């Protein structure tokens, strides 16, 4: 290949557009199947967590006392064999007796008797039951001691089952995902912002300032991490927004170290020396040389930080220190699941699957980004 490509073109009007390192990285990422599948999965997960709760017919706070710890199923509740119990429960609350009941299609007819006059308002007990709605009084005996009521069987789906107090696990899991993802992003951004500013300052100023700043980081490192977090919980109470800003403020240490190291090494690069030799100001060097070259490691670390934050949130919630009822997060759900593992294992398995698969996806994306931005490692 010859290097001389002398071109007589007069101040060529058009220029070939080159492919930047970012373009290269994007092409490499697109070729990485695991990372791309993970990316799609993560987008899918975010969408169903944000939008999903509006489409699930149950609110995450609604309690169905009749359906405590109902197993997940594709077929609707109530089941044929449980209709009688639900009916019995409701009628018992009316303080009347069942004389006879039968089902025609999706309507249930029940004849009740009592020693006293049967009050018409008793229908509300049937209405209140989670199994029935559209209750009507079909006929009353002339003496008022007997009454025929009918009600539609209310068909409800609990695809993920219900929890200890009878709340739909699907809507709770999606809601929890919203919270967990939001916290991960929020605290991740806080950590990155603090870490980048701190690390870049230390790395760029260097000398004594750098030494002191990094010594502070060392001291903070040597304090048990969980001590920090618990102190924050103690200070901020259980206001989760504040707390997770604080959690982000704890996780910045690694970021600061990485950024400082990078800033130091970029400063030693010859292209920075070249800029200095041209008289470029410190601001110009930071803007044109340091920041663009720092971006890669920051992006990589950020994708690895978000799962860390989500994990930390789950951990705190698991300990009962994080998100508080009735608000929920994957950690809260898993904690409840772990306690009911003998009787209702779906309470553990569904949220755990959501959490773990999301963390997997984030990790694969992080790894993919690292390979794409820093292909030397492969």
């Amino acid at each position: 290949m010859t290097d001389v490509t002398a071109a007589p073109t007069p101040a060529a009007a058009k220029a070939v557009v080159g492919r930047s390192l970012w373009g290269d990285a994007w092409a490499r990422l697109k070729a990485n199947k695991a990372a791309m599948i993970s990316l799609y999965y993560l987008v899918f997960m975010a969408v169903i967590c944000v939008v999903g709760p509006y489409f699930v017919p149950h609110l995450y706070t609604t309690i169905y006392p009749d359906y405590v710890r109902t197993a997940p199923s594709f077929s609707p509740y109530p089941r044929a064999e449980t209709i009688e119990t639900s009916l019995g429960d409701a009628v018992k609350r009316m303080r009347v007796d069942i004389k006879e009941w039968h089902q025609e299609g999706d309507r249930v007819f029940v004849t009740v008797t009592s020693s006293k006059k049967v009050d018409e308002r008793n229908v509300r007990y049937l209405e209140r039951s989670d199994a029935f709605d559209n209750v009507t009084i079909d006929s009353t005996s002339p003496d008022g001691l007997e009454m025929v009521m009918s009600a539609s069987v209310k068909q409800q789906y609990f695809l993920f089952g219900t929890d200890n107090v009878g709340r739909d696990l699907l809507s709770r899991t999606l809601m929890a995902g919203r919270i967990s993802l939001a916290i991960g992003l929020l605290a991740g951004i806080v950590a990155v912002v603090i870490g980048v500013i701190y690390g870049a300052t230390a790395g760029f100023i260097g000398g004594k300032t750098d030494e002191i700043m990094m010594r502070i980081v060392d001291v903070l490192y040597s304090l048990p991490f969980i001590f920090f977090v618990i102190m924050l919980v103690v200070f901020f109470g259980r206001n989760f927004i504040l707390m997770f800003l604080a959690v982000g403020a704890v996780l910045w240490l690694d970021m600061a170290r990485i950024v400082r190291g990078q800033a130091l090494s970029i400063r030693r690069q010859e292209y920075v020396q070249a800029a200095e030799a041209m008289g470029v100001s410190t601001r110009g060097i930071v803007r044109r040389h340091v920041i663009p070259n720092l971006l890669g490691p920051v992006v990589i670390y950020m994708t690895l930080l978000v799962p860390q934050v989500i994990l930390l949130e789950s951990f705190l919630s698991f300990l009962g220190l994080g998100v508080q009822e009735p608000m929920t997060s994957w950690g809260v759900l898993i904690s409840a699941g772990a306690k009911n593992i003998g009787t209702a294992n779906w309470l553990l398995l569904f949220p755990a699957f959501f959490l773990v698969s999301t963390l997997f996806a984030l990790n694969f994306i992080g790894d993919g980004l690292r390979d794409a931005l820093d292909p030397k490692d492969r």
Partner: protein
Amino acid sequence: MSTPETVLSVNDLRVRFRTLDGVVEAVKGINLKVGAGETVAIVGESGSGKSQTMMAAMRLLASNGEATGSVDYRGRNLLTLSKSGLNEVRGRKITMIFQEPMTSLDPLYTIGNQLIEPIQRHRKLGAAAAREEALKLLKLVKIPDPERRMKSYPYEMSGGQRQRVMIAMALANDPDILIADEPTTALDVTIQAQILTLLAELQQKLGMAIVFITHDLGIVRRFADRVYVMRQGEVVEEGVTEAVFSKPTHPYTKMLLSAEPTGRKAPPAPNAPILLQGRDVEVVFKIGGGFLAGDPMLLRAVDRINIALRKGQTIGIVGESGSGKSTLGRALLRLLGSEGSIRFENRDISKADKGDMRPLRRELQLVFQDPFGSLSPRMTVGQIITEGLLVHEPSLSAKQRDARACEALEEVGLDPIMRNRYPHEFSGGQRQRIAIARAMILKPKVVVLDEPTSALDRSVQKQIVELLRKLQKDHDLSYLFISHDLAVVRAMADYLIVMKQGKIVEEGMTDAIFDNPREEYTQTLMAAAMDPTKFRLSA
């Protein structure tokens, strides 16, 4: 010349690498033969596949590499041999030394341990006997104080000594063939000469064949009986060394042979004004020290140097690594703190701070050795070249800057339509042109060229040297040309300074020093770099 028995023959060897950008064929079906006791050189520039050929033969390719064809050693095909069969040959019959003396030995074991291991493995000797053998080898490669060195770790030895240990290791089992992959490239020129002499002596004593992989035609001429010229994975020419050198047939070989920079630079008029002058320039580095670590060690990198650069002059500064030549260049540009006085156009700038220096920066430019490290990887070539204009001609519009970038690129022989590309899309020589354009766009008066050709292939070096000379003539520039490469310096500089350990050993007009070096150190340097007969071997 009688034809010796062929010990190694490479037939239709192909080497492919799977990379992120697809499969790359590094060696494209080549044939080689090595006779017993013969010295064969494989010569080529970077990317010619010369190293990968022998790596493939030794089955040392990186894990993404794959070789087809055959490599026969006395009837055994090394490419298909079983692992244990292969290890009967490797290290015993065929051995190899490498380009990187600093990293080729295991840092965690002593020299003795590393020497003894292959001896024990291949010759089934007892520990004591193997130790004796290792000691003998260290004496053979002339390592001083071999008893003590047996217990040394590699980090305690210099590069030249490590390369001697590598040679000792390679010769431990009396091999048939020694493959030497650029064994002296990473070493200083005087050490290079010593290692080459040693190899020559050992070959005469032990009679093994040597396959010499190199980019250095000087070494080939001195050393090889036969030569293969490789280019882009193919052998373009082969033959007896003298024949190839005197009557090259392939245009590429011709180009390589004429790649040595030629011509001389005439000195400037004696009354040309002095632009940049240093008096008693001194740079001291502190090593170690700090909190609780005691007093730092002082290293006098530049020791009271006097220098005066006239308009239109090129001063060459030569010296081996650690001589302080680069430090001096940076100190004169006030990129490093120094003692003594530095004057630019009769103005004392030795106390000037960053702000004072800024307007002067456009007059005083610097070009680096490494064209890969000195260009910001995330900026386009246009942005890189025009960065200085942002500082020194802030009134220019984006359009005007773009026009200036086109001009500058054309001046260094690059097509301006490439200005929106990124540095990684260019070859080493093109990148160095970009770096030169970045300096030239500011229309400087003095340019410090810090080994601008050392990272480049010989043929590209010549082009860069010619470019620099043309630019000097066109713009009446003054150069400070720092290099360890005497051939390039001779073609570039009219005045020469020889440095050693921070001091000037000798200085004077370039031709005078080359023709008649006075100091012993200069003589050694010249002899090592220039004398082609000193290491000549078999006829």
